[in-house]
């Protein structure tokens, strides 16, 4: 069977493809999952370890280390940070310089896309992309955007040309050669400034089939561009297919629709305990229906708690006794749970936060609790989150309120329209009063039409039919692509290689400009470096000369001492040598004299 290499940004993406990877392994494919960066924020490392232990055909590892990751690039651009000791690393090597250029070009392309007419109301998405870009480039993009469509197109062409000229790091080519995969899968590829483009480029040169697996419903509209379109794109549904074609330039024939394998488990799940037991565990009154509030990510809802407190107060003040006394289960988004520590539950009766803040999302009970929270709820409320899709699968009424503080992340994003637009499962209200009316209807016996939810789920999650799970479709699609004949290697054209010395200069400039400093600093830097070097040379010279003199004087002193010492010893020996016969003569004279005296006497 085939060898498949799956490059993921971090282990957090495993959860999107857990079942699909198991399916590929079960189908006899050898799958190696390589992570670009490690992430332990939500204990994703455990997910990777669990995946590796699931099947001997699945292995996990890391991708080659980058000269400069996107994270490093962004850290270097942090103006508020003062770093010591970068003087010697300022220029970096050629490879690092090209990494900087690559990240700059990709961030520029990503920022530029949010000036397209399709993103007219997406100011927050544009601001998020701008924040990652060094300031020197923002005015460049603004100028191109001001020139309208032709300006944007011209800049985009230049940037895409640069992208082609930027060489793929040698380590990545070697990594792909070493694994010799029949199929390369990448996800998410569209993160702002993503370096996964290099894997797609490398696979083209080496003749390896590449596929982008679109992980989530917002990936093609709220993040960056593909920049280099892989051979194939696997998407959830027709809507994403249209996005891939219209917004990313993929050919319709390149796009494969499989459904969302991530949600297959929701169709089969059953509760493991009764409603009574569940309500007892979470701390809600089992005799009342409860509304599940599903929290959103930090970009969508940075200040969610004050909104929820207001919503809850409004609910409690409702004249309708059913609404006023309904239970409320608050479920923070796992990556945005910290802010919920400020929520004061004491002010609200029959309300609970579940699971408790800090619960490990990899714990087996976590998913079970989540399913049961949805299953036993009478209605689900949220701002803009994938939990609203999951609630639709479980066929619960789903509601949202258009709040001014979340305008940037509701109507300011394209994917929200799938929830609330025609055929969307979510009923949106512009005011609290309208929302309470909708909620009252949802809690009443009839509730909204479940047909609407089913239609949405069929179109969005299981496009091949409600009874056709997406995981086998994904496994089949990936298997077919892996078994197909590999594409012919596409070596770099000569003009690309000829342009590289020029690009090298641009790369050096990009490396410097990534620091996001005022331009005069770059002019001052050589002067300052020269001054410091001169000071350094002066100090070294002084030290050396001083050392020489010091050593010389010491030697002379030692020589003199030795000469004195040696001479004094020689003199002593000579003296003793002379003294000996004299003493002997004295003793002889003495003894002769003593004998003469004795005889004479």
């Amino acid at each position, binding site marked *: 069977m085939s060898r498949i290499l799956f490059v993921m940004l971090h282990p957090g993406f495993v959860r999107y493809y857990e079942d699909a990877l198991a399916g590929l392994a079960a189908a006899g494919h050898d799958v190696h999952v390589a992570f670009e960066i490690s992430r332990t924020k939500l204990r994703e490392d455990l997910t990777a370890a669990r995946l590796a232990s699931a099947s001997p055909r699945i292995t996990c590892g890391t991708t080659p280390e980058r000269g400069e990751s996107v994270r490093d690039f962004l850290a270097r651009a942090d103006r508020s940070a*003062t*770093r*010591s*000791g*970068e*003087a*010697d690393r*300022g220029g970096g090597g050629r490879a690092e310089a090209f990494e900087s250029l690559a990240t700059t070009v990709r961030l520029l392309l990503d920022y530029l896309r949010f000036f397209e007419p399709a993103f007219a109301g997406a100011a927050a998405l544009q601001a998020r992309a701008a924040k990652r870009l060094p300031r020197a480039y923002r005015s460049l993009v603004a100028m191109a955007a001001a020139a309208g469509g032709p300006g944007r197109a011209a800049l985009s062409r230049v940037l895409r040309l640069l992208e082609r000229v930027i060489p793929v790091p040698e380590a990545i080519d070697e990594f792909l050669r070493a694994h010799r995969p029949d199929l390369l899968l990448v996800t998410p590829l569209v993160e702002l400034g993503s370096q996964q483009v290099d894997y797609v480029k490398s696979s083209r040169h080496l003749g390896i089939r590449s596929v982008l697996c679109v992980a989530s419903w917002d990936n093609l509209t709220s993040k960056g561009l593909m920049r280099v379109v892989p051979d194939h794109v696997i998407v959830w549904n027709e809507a994403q297919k249209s996005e891939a074609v219209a917004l990313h330039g993929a050919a319709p024939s390149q796009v494969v629709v499989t459904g969302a394998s991530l949600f297959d488990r929701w169709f089969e799940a059953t509760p493991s305990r009764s409603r009574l037991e569940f309500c007892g565990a979470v701390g809600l009154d089992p005799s009342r229906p409860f509304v599940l509030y599903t929290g959103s990510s930090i970009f969508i809802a940075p200040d969610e*708690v*004050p*909104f929820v*407190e*207001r919503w809850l*107060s409004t609910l409690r003040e409702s004249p309708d006794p059913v609404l006023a006394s309904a239970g409320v289960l608050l479920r923070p988004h796992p990556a945005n749970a*910290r*802010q919920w*520590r*400020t929520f*004061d539950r004491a*002010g609200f009766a029959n309300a609970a936060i579940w699971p408790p*803040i800090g619960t490990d999302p990899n714990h087996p009970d976590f998913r079970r609790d989540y399913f049961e929270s949805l299953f036993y709820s009478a209605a689900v409320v949220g701002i803009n989150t994938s939990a609203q899709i999951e609630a639709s699968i479980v066929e619960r009424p789903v509601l949202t309120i258009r*709040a*001014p*503080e979340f305008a940037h992340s509701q109507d300011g994003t394209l994917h929200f329209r799938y929830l609330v637009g025609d055929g969307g499962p979510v009923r949106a209200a512009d005011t609290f009063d309208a929302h309470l009316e909708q909620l009252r209807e949802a809690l009443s016996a009839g509730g909204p039409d479940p047909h609407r939810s089913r239609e949405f789920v069929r179109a969005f999650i299981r496009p091949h039919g409600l009874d056709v799970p997406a995981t086998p479709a994904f496994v089949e699609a990936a298997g077919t692509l892996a078994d197909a004949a590999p594409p012919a290697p596409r070596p770099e054209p000569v003009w690309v290689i000829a342009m590289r010395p020029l690009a090298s200069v641009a790369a050096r400039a990009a490396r410097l400009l990534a620091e996001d*400093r*005022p331009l005069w*600093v770059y002019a*001052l*830097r050589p002067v*300052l*470096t020269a001054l*410091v070097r001169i*000071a*350094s040379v002066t*100090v*070294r010279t002084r*030290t050396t000369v001083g050392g020489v003199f010091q050593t010389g004087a010491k030697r002379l002193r030692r020589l003199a001492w030795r000469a004195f010492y040696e001479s004094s010893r020689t003199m002593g020996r000579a003296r003793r040598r002379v003294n000996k016969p004299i003493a002997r003569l004295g003793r002889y004279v003495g003894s002769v004299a003593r004998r003469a005296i004795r005889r004479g006497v």
Partner: protein
Amino acid sequence: MSPVLTIPIGARLVEASRPGAATPGAFSVDVLATLARARQRGRAACLLASPGVPAVTCDVVPVVDAAGVTAAWVAAWLRVASAARRAAAWRRQTVASVWSELHRELRRQAGDPRLPASVRERVRAAARAALARAARRDADAAGRFPRRALREPLQVRLSPEVEPAVRTVAAGREEAIAAVETGDPRRDSALAVAAAALQDAGLRVVRLGRASQPADAGAGADVWLNDLAVLRQARLVICESAAWQHAAYLTDTPSLRVNAPEPFSAYPVRANGVFTLRQAIDLDSGRVLAPADQLKPSYLRNLRNHGHRDTPPEQVRDAIREMLADAAGEPAESAAQRRFREAVVAAGPDAAAAMPPLRAWSADDGFIGDGRLARCQADGLQ
């Protein structure tokens, strides 16, 4: 704060300014600072009116009527002064930025392990000196909140021309009223609690702010007049933003500020001012920080790691009771409240270093204010 200039008008010198029209708080602070300086120097004051804000007079300081040629003369002076101020601010900011960048460059060089130790030490010292210069320039740029100038109440009156309009606006409000800020409709729970508590105490609650004008305000009535009329008549004002507490200084109305983000900017200048701090929560551990902890640089440097909760309703109610009791007699400061005030004064320099925007709000020559933290919060301190 608008600049106060000494300008010759005819044969005499006057203290002149154009009170800010952005918020009633800015207006109040500018008016009071100008009058206080004029009183201190024994001169008259000249307050150049902006469109939409009322003219004022004062019982203790003569106020020159700025109209016609005089107004044009004063406006020209103020315009030039304002331009000069902006230019100076730009220059200070630019110089501070240059020193700051130089600091970074020198630090970058100082970390080069190939350099001799003595050179690295000297470069490091130069970097420190550059940073100190940048910080000094920043400090120069930050104006200081004129706490001392606002300390003494001045008998400020709206000019006779507008008094009838005020009377019209205030008509029918002879009974005791309390002014409550309308606030942000997205999070007004503390103000709602306060309004309910005031009503329980028998006061009629009137909302302050452009968002909620009294129903009896005439179509052409000026919103500034409405707010000032309400403030003048109110027995106390409850607010969440600094602007309304500052506005209360103009009419010398007792004020309670709830949910103050930190004690430095919120510390009331007048003895009839009280404030409560919102609760700070450590987002890692969930621990609720005591007010004294909110004075520490470790907290101010790490605000992103802390969330906040509104002042609890019972504390809001306690603070209102304290205010009402004080209104009946002389405001009394407890030992705990005094200790907290002293701690705020002492913590000012460290706090300003940790969070430069606080520099403008720290003690003015050792004076932070005669007001106090609500007793219910202060008594919990060591």
